[in-house]
């Protein structure tokens, strides 16, 4: 990082250092808070802040799972399809007129297990194709998006004859109506992922595989299994996000989370997780999620058009991806 100053010029060496460090997302969050606080009405009110946090929970869970896949040097574009399919599977188990277990007290736990199982299965298939068949991750998960997204729509029409399924059990809907419960679930999952990535053998292996799969294999890392594990984790986390979304919107629908994909990858990248693998932290991703939530909410309060919000987000994500490339180039220049 000694040559960081050469890119920004001598005067902006400290700026370059912040950009190069892991605190870029946090700095952005503070900047957004400072910028919106005086102009956006009610931005700092406790009600609004709670609103921001609760609204960001699904994104937090999704981006956390994505971080793990990114660290291994892969990418999981199929998370939105997992959300849709898991939502339908859960609803078909638990509720509506056709729910297999409707009315049963066990409907809620079985339904959630089925949703998580759906995510794990799709994650496993993704991981299998990437690790064992050596296919490019973006292609595999893009195809998974089509296939399982389509399956979700087909399933809901075929099995229920409707577009979306209502009448989910009250115990399940509590996850949506009681924000503290949802927050507990999401935070627990995030902390678990943080510990997994930072403190366990598997976590170090995720990093090693992302840095250099050949060197990892020669050092005895079971690269194939580690890769599959990353996609399974991502699938389960996407399914957990589906639980939160489905409960909050009180319907099972194949269309849940359709617009979230870029936010998911963007949040991880804004935080500082590298698109080329080996570098990433769940804490950084939390910053990225928070920033996107602050940005969306602040612009919303200012009555800015949704489209402009999308454009602004896109711009920030682009800058973050550029930073990622910069860091890599700095690293290469230093050689």
């Amino acid at each position, binding site marked *: 990082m*000694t040559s960081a100053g050469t890119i920004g010029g001598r005067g902006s060496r400290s700026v370059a250092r912040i950009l190069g460090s892991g605190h870029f997302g946090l700095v952005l969050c503070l900047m957004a808070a400072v910028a919106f606080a005086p102009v956006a009405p009610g931005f700092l009110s406790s009600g609004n802040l709670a609103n921001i946090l609760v609204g960001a929970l699904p994104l937090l869970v999704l981006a956390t799972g994505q971080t793990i896949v990114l660290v291994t040097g892969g990418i999981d574009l199929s998370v939105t399809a997992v959300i849709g399919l898991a939502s339908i599977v859960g609803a078909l188990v638990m509720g509506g007129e056709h729910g297999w277990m409707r009315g049963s007290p066990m409907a809620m736990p079985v339904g959630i297990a089925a949703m998580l199982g759906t995510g794990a299965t799709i994650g496993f298939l993704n991981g299998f194709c990437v690790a064992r068949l050596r296919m490019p991750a973006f292609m595999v998960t893009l195809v998974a998006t089509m296939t399982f997204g389509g399956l979700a729509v087909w399933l809901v029409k075929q099995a229920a004859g409707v577009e979306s399924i209502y009448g989910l059990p009250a115990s399940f809907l509590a996850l949506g109506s009681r924000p503290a419960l949802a927050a507990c679930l999401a935070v627990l999952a995030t902390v678990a992922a943080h510990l997994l990535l930072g*403190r366990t053998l598997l976590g170090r292996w995720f*990093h090693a595989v992302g840095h250099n799969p*050949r060197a990892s*294999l*020669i*050092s*005895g890392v*079971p690269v194939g299994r580690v890769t599959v594990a990353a996609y399974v984790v991502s699938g389960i986390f996407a399914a957990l996000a589906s639980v939160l979304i489905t409960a909050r919107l009180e319907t099972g629908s194949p269309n849940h989370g359709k617009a979230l994909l870029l936010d998911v990858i963007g949040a991880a990248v804004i935080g500082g997780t590298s698109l080329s693998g080996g*570098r990433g932290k769940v804490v950084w991703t939390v910053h990225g999620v928070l920033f996107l939530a602050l940005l969306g909410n602040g612009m919303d309060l200012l009555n800015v058009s949704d489209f402009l919000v999308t454009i602004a987000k896109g711009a920030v994500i682009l800058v973050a991806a550029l930073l990622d490339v910069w860091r890599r180039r700095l690293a290469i220049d230093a050689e």
Partner: protein
Amino acid sequence: MIASTEDRGTTAEPSDAVRFDGIVKGFTGVPVLKGVSFGVAAGKVVGLVGENGAGKSTLMNLLGGNLRPDAGTIRRDGRPYTPQGPDDARAAGIAFVHQELNLFPNLSIAENLFLRDFPRGPGRLPWIDRGALRAKSEALLLQVGLDRDPATPVERLPAGERQLVEIAKALGADARVILFDEPTTSLSSVERERLFALVAKLRDRGIAMVYISHALGDVLRLCDDVVVLRDGEVVGAGAATSFDHDRLVSLMVGRQLTQLYPERLPRTHDVAPGAPVRGPVLEVSGVSQPGIVRDISFQLVAGEVLGISGLMGAGRSELARILFGLDPHGTGEIRLDGERLDGPPGERIRRGLAFLTEDRRGEGLCMEASITDNMALATLRSHTRTPARWLDSRAVDLVVGLMRDAVRLSPKAKGADAVRTLSGGNQQKVVLGKWLLAAPKVLVLDEPTRGIDIGAKSEIYQLVHRLADRGAGVIVISSELEEVVGICDRVLVMRHGAITGEFRRGGFDREKMLAAALVAPKP
């Protein structure tokens, strides 16, 4: 034509094709070059030697226009030369032949030769005149003595021929000054001879050349003059005939390095060739893989350093990869401690096998990861607690810290530094430390000292011997005959995938060893 630091400025030879005068260059306050002066005359080859970090690469980057000096001047044919980028270097007739070649493997020879300046069709229209391209390429290939169709994709050429293409590219750009940076590291001895002949031919054509290499024997043989760099200063310069190997080494390291290879006495036990050995730690019997290796059988005793020598492509590295489970083998059997060895690398590591690959950057290290992470990677599992395989990072830091000292890693480097920031020698010590932490029963080293300076080489040899003295079996694969002769108890010579000779310390005969590497095996 060579001016040492003392008489700089007084001997500005007008005939020098390139002349450095009092070049000073530092990075973020750390001086890398401290007033370097020397010249290269047309039709001369100057050998530039020095340990890694002595400033050779920085000097070349200055000439190539990638960096600018803080003080001092570079002259090209007597005129001040201040390149702003690689294009200026090219325009000034300066070309580089790098260790890692800058060719596009997916393009043809001809396309690589003229990538910057394709012969155009009539009227300067943006399409390529294929006929002219072929004719010009053929002319260039003739000059470097490469008998290949210019349409051949570069990826189909062996390393030595790729280098010839690189040189042809330099000639095609009308280069008058060519810099070779470690050109022989991936060449077989036949290819090396061909390269040397070509260098001699270019010298006769009046091209000035700088030849950077750790292979001091080559430098002394090939070069007219030698410049020795140490810590950014010229510490010795003069006609190559006024140096010998030992003097170069002591100039480079700044101290008397009495012995590169630590003393190794002939082993008293197990001296009878072919005699049955009790309790070998590694047994390889009849291992074959079509087109790769043929009927390889040998045994490795605990405490033994076994060398495997042979030319590039003889199957040495391939054999190592088979031993480690990276590549399959058709027939034959490998036993470790009497039990059959199979499964993926992770399984073999747990059984006590370790493998230092020849490709340090590509397979040995995670370049962007920290020193600690790299050193601990192969043994992380032993520092975990179930159920979640929770990592005891304090224990990891502790053992890595101890190993850092044991392999004498540069004390300046911090554990959290990326291994990319280390010199080649220190990087190799990280890889070696990784495997020593695993306390292997058998350690396979493939080209352990490639691209490493002499000080680090000597330290690595000592580590190898210490490991063997503690009862491990060590296999050293090397294309440098001197190296295996210097450190091994026994040497197997391979050719075309088969073992063609076996020699024991006390009975090492370089000529016979070379003959075994060159002569076809008996059917």
